[in-house]
């Protein structure tokens, strides 16, 4: 147990040295580290609970995605059956599917064949999965089309991907520093912005779908009358500013997807804040045609099912650009421009979890963590030295190397250090000390059993190491489970605890043994000083 070949000694020292070296970037300011080569830049990231910032967990509205999917399926059914000149009645979204009744029994087979075109095979991880996007079933002349769950899940997944891109654009436009935006599970998005103290504006920007439509105002009856009776089938009642209601056609002239640019500005005459926009070529053409055909009639600019303004078309707008005015403040005009530039979210997002830590609390936590770590380390060092003397000193060296190695490994992993993470490191010190205690107590026992000093040290190491392995693996299992199920701060704790167990195993099995081995070789002790 006390014999090391030369290359083994070299390997042990090299590993310890290199891992400790990885911790170095943490001691230099960010600006200095940025100038280093890329491979040397890895360092521990402070968690939001330590550096302050906002953590927002958003969820894509699965219900809205499903509804939209059904609506477009409904439109597809109409298009296909019309193309095939098949007569039908009672086409509607019913429950989780679309139903249509074919008028003539002889058309049913033909209709089924046509509608099955809507059902495409879904590709799984290994080629086609055998599932299809839509289940088409016939009962007499009633045909039901149901989007499959797999297809909906896939649709939600796509919606999340699109949303992430759009959120990135929106957040970047706000000028926030180093935001991270990532998918969580199937239908969630985690947005983390370090240093953000008041996320109100961010939440407002993220909470808007920003679906902009240009639609005609339905003048067939006043909105009040439509609200009391029933609006025409192709129109709906939408809210405007204040208590005003509008009757708006469902048909969309031009949508926000055709915008290429939007900028906040001021109206030249009234100097009110406005948003000016520009269409792409197809949008410009559609807008020009629509305005030419409807001079003198009002159209509506609808944002997220709310009418921003409903101006009357005075002359055809052919240039492909225009402006929106409507009770904006400078800030809200600016925000709307950001939203329009970034594009509309495919489905609404809901904030389901928020954790914001101000910079004051973060700094306090770092200070508290540091104080606790220093105090804990100092007390443990004194205690170990008082209990085991020279060997206590060895143990202290091992623990110090251990802590440096923890930071080295955490840096390599670019791990996030949270306050519970600091607690994990402090506890790891306890574990690292325990390894040494186990070894030393075993040596004491072997000495009492009558062994010679060197014999006792050798036996002490070999017996204690088996125990250390067993006890550490059990704790490591707990840490692993914690990492697997934990989120945020808890995960930070699991990481430092797990890494700490590994490094303390390393120091117990190699470094402590090496130090003692050299001591034995140099001093040839007759008795063990513990």
């Amino acid at each position: 147990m006390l014999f090391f070949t030369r290359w083994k000694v070299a390997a042990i020292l090299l590993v310890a040295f290199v891992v400790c070296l990885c911790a170095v970037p943490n001691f230099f300011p960010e600006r200095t580290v940025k100038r280093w080569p890329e491979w040397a830049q890895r360092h521990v990231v402070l968690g939001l609970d330590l550096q302050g910032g906002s953590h927002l967990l958003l969820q894509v509205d699965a219900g809205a995605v499903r509804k939209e999917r059904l609506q477009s399926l409904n439109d597809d059914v109409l298009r296909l059956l019309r193309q095939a000149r098949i007569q039908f009645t009672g086409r509607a979204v019913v429950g989780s599917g679309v139903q249509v009744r074919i008028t003539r029994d002889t058309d049913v087979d033909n209709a089924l064949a046509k509608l099955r075109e809507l059902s495409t095979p879904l590709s799984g991880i290994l080629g086609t999965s055998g599932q299809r996007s839509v289940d088409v079933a016939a009962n007499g002349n009633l045909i039901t089309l149901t989007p499959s769950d797999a297809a909906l899940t896939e649709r939600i997944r796509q919606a999340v991907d699109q949303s992430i891109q759009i959120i990135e654009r929106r957040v970047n436009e706000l000028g926030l520093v180093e935001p991270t935006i990532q998918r969580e599970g199937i239908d969630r998005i985690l947005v983390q912005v370090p240093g953000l103290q008041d996320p109100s504006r961010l939440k407002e920007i993220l909470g808007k779908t920003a679906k902009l439509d240009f639609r005609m105002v339905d003048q067939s009856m006043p909105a009040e009358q439509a609200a009391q009776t029933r609006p025409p089938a192709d129109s709906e009642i939408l809210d405007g500013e204040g208590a005003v209601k509008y009757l708006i056609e469902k048909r969309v002239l031009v949508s926000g997807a055709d915008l290429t640019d939007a900028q906040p500005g001021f109206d030249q005459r009234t100097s009110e804040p406005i948003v000016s926009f520009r269409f792409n070529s197809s949008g410009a053409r559609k807008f020009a045609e629509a305005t030419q055909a409807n001079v003198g009639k009002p159209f509506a600019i609808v944002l997220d099912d709310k009418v921003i303004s409903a101006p009357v078309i005075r002359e055809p707008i052919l240039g492909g650009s225009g402006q929106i005015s409507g009770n904006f403040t400078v800030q809200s005009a600016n925000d709307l421009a950001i939203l329009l530039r970034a594009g509309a979210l495919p489905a609404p997002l809901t904030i389901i979890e928020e954790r914001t830590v101000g910079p004051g609390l973060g700094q306090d936590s770092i200070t508290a963590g540091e104080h606790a770590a220093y105090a804990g380390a100092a007390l443990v060092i004194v205690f170990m030295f008082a209990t085991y003397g020279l060997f206590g000193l060895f143990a202290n060296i091992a623990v110090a190397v251990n802590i440096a190695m923890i930071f080295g490994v955490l840096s390599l992993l670019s791990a996030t250090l949270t306050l519970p993470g600091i607690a994990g490191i402090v506890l790891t010190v306890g574990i690292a000390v325990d390894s040494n205690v186990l070894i030393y107590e075993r040596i004491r026992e072997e000495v009492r059993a009558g062994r010679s000093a060197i014999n006792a040290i050798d036996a002490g190491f070999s017996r204690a190491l088996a125990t250390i392995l067993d006890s550490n693996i059990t704790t490591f299992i707990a840490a692993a489970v914690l990492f697997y199920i934990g989120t945020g701060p808890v995960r930070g704790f699991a990481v430092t605890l797990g890494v700490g167990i590994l490094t303390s195993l390393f120091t117990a099995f190699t470094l402590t043994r090496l130090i003692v081995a050299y001591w034995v070789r140099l001093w040839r002790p007759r008795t063990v000083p513990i």
Partner: protein
Amino acid sequence: MRLLRIVPDDTKFDFMRFRRISFPVSALLSIAAIALYFFHGLNFGIDFVGGTLIEVQTKAGPADLAKMRSTIGGLKLGDFQLQEFGAANDVLIRISEQPGGDEAQQAAVAKVREALGEEVDYRRVEVVGPSVSTELLAYGTIGLVLAIGAILIYLWFRFEWQFALGAMIANVHDLVLTVGFMSLTHIDFDLTSIAALLTILGYSLNDTVVIYDRIREMLRRYKRMSMPDLLNVSINATLSRSIVTHLTVAISLLALLLFGGQAIHSFTATMMFGVVLVGTYTSVFIASPILIYLGVGSNRMEGAAEEPEPPAAAATPPQRARTRR
């Protein structure tokens, strides 16, 4: 230099004698803890029941709790609590989950921010919606069960099944008592509490495994020693290590408790109780004696004369001496 010797060499405490006391006491305490859980309940934090937690610091002088209470009370947000948090100008506001799903929670925060205005610094705002809190609780529970299961399987492989079962009973006992402690002291039960419980589990097992390791070694070495004696010898042999290790852990925890700040206060307090008080007691007075009841060593030739293999320092067996005469 004289070294600190907390436990004298060669202690011979008869730990096994206490099993007639420790088992009923532990059973009673466990029942009490379970009763506390059901009748007194846990102070579930927003992680598990949803809701809003806002920590504010007044900018000028100590906080006027009464005024703040009436301000927030005027918002009609249902149940809420105000609590001084560490310092006189630091206030923790807890608002129960608002009816109306995830969006309603956000609206509540906006209202509070508006009502308290610029007089305070917002140190921390946490909002957990109903969909997340249910999941967090489920994940937490699953995590604990998984961890216990995984550890059990590992111990079963490394030892015999009786050891795995004994360790599990002992450590579930630790967890139950700790939950009882949290109920009694009304400590916030949140995600970090789950972390604390898992760490306690890890540490307790660590300790139990160290003693079990020794028991296994003794079982191989002394084929005829009676089980209670063997357990006593094992515990006594590892006693010094147990005390020294737990003192160092206690020292680390004490440092965290004193300097670690309010944010991890409940975490460290729980750990202190679970690891230092309960964990140590359990491995000595529950985990070890339970092996007797689980039938470890029941096929041993108990009461027969001792025939130790090495170490050579042991005395010559008396029986053989007699025959020679």
